[in-house]
């Protein structure tokens, strides 16, 4: 499996990244190097091996549903790039 510059551009779209032509060339080369290296995992037969998603045997960490103080609107908005009337401002969507 070898990545083409077209596929790299498509992945960038999925990840909401914009790449320059130079970056597309660089990432294509570097990601192919890395994918070639990780292909060594195919040396192993894992048919019977369950995937590990987590190292601890924890399921459903419940806690009481209590009302607690949260951030005030001003605190929540304090780091916003743009805000107005207690709301986040974003560029036009449609």
């Amino acid at each position: 499996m070898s990545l083409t510059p077209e596929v790299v551009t498509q992945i960038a779209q999925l990840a909401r990244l914009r790449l320059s032509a130079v970056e597309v060339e660089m990432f294509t080369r570097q990601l192919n190097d890395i994918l070639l290296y990780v292909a060594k995992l195919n040396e192993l037969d894992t048919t019977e091996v369950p995937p590990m998603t987590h190292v601890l045997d924890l399921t459903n960490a419940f806690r009481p549903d209590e009302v607690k103080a949260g951030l005030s609107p001003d605190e929540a908005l304090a780091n916003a790039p743009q805000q107005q009337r207690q709301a986040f401002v974003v560029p036009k969507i449609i």
Partner: protein
Amino acid sequence: MMDSWQHLTIHEAQSLLHKKEISAVELTNGFLARIAALDGRLHCYLTVDAEGALAQAQEADKRLAAGAAGPLTGIPLAIKDLIATKGLRTTCASKYLENFIPPYDATVTQKLRQAGAVILGKVNMDEFAMGSSTENSAFGVTRNPWHMDYIPGGSSGGSAAAVAADLCLAALGSDTGGSIRQPASHCGVVGLKPTYGRVSRFGLVAYASSLDQIGPLTKDVTDSALLLQAIAGHDPQDSTSAPLPVPDYAAALHQDVTGLKIGVPREYFGQGLDPEVEQAVRAALSHYERLGAELLEVSLPHTEYAVAVYYLIATAEASSNLARYDGVKYGWRDPAAKELHDMYLATRSQGLGTEVRRRIMLGTYALSAGYYDAYYRKASQVRTLIRRDFDQVFQTCQVVATPVAPTAAFRLGEKIDDPLTMYLSDIFTISANLAGIPGISLPCGFTAQGLPIGLQLLAPPFAEPTLLTAAHAFQQTTSFHRRRPPL
């Protein structure tokens, strides 16, 4: 005065504070002066909070005078810049978060404050903890205090260098694939990665959530025990934190290692291991034998697959975690963007550095339709095999001993253009994160050039006391950890 306190450990400073031979304000002022004098060259700190630190030190002095001191009262510490500190800038060494002021404290920050610690400031790292050299910081490299042309390791390079250069008494870092242990090794300090779930991750900016863990970087093992005691424990705000009682770590320091079975995995002593590193680590192993421990050769057969597994799982998790940096709720936004989709693209492309974008790309690919089974699922299966290797080995020994890294610190710029080679420098530390087990890195020698070499000890889940016992026994009978860089 200036010179007598700078090499202090936490436990030595505690004793001076309690005997009133030094005040917390004097100690804090001393560190602030030393940072002002040396950090222009080293660049460990991204933010120094002189005002906040002095206020905390004054409070500490009041508590000391009243006999109401906590376990860390008046102890000046540094915190890696991806752990939230309320009101104090937390950048993750990213342009995207350059001006981010957290509205809350991470659980570990809150615990340090409750214990009475003085927070000197926030220290440098690879952007979002992605890197092995601290060269991926958006705000410039940190230098190795032992040699200015060398990297301090990463991603907690600022934490390790600040401890080594005596710019704080100790520091917190985070470890996803070796990011505490490898810089600790390269800077000649002690770095402890706790068991996954031992320390709360609430307020730790997420890189790879199933691997990330916060831990201490300190000048000796006694301090590791002290700092771990302060930050460990279950936290209802982190659903992955372990609901287990926290043992008395200081008590573990006074156990001895007679009869301790130390496994030496042959896969860690093969090709690619620098001869000087091998020699120092083998000498450390012989030292353990003299102390009464028993060495046995063991095998961790899937070691060679760990880097491949890590760079699929960690990047997959990162691609999801870093989707939140969209320019809407906090952080930087490209002000020129006129339309929403364009704003996402422009903001993320300019706000995030090259290594971060490379990992997002790799992770997005590994999770994408048609490739999920071949990459992410396959890696998760091999992760199970790596964990089983350790489960098996720990039936015959209590501790596994290995080098921390295949070489001592490398030169600045040496690997920055070759990501795969950089990734392979984590080959000995990554398995512990994949298996979720604790590991400690401690100084065990120096290269001919004078760069520190580290020994890594690994133990079963929640066996931090065993690690502390073994590491402390080594430091009680050696002096590598007492050497200081020529600054």
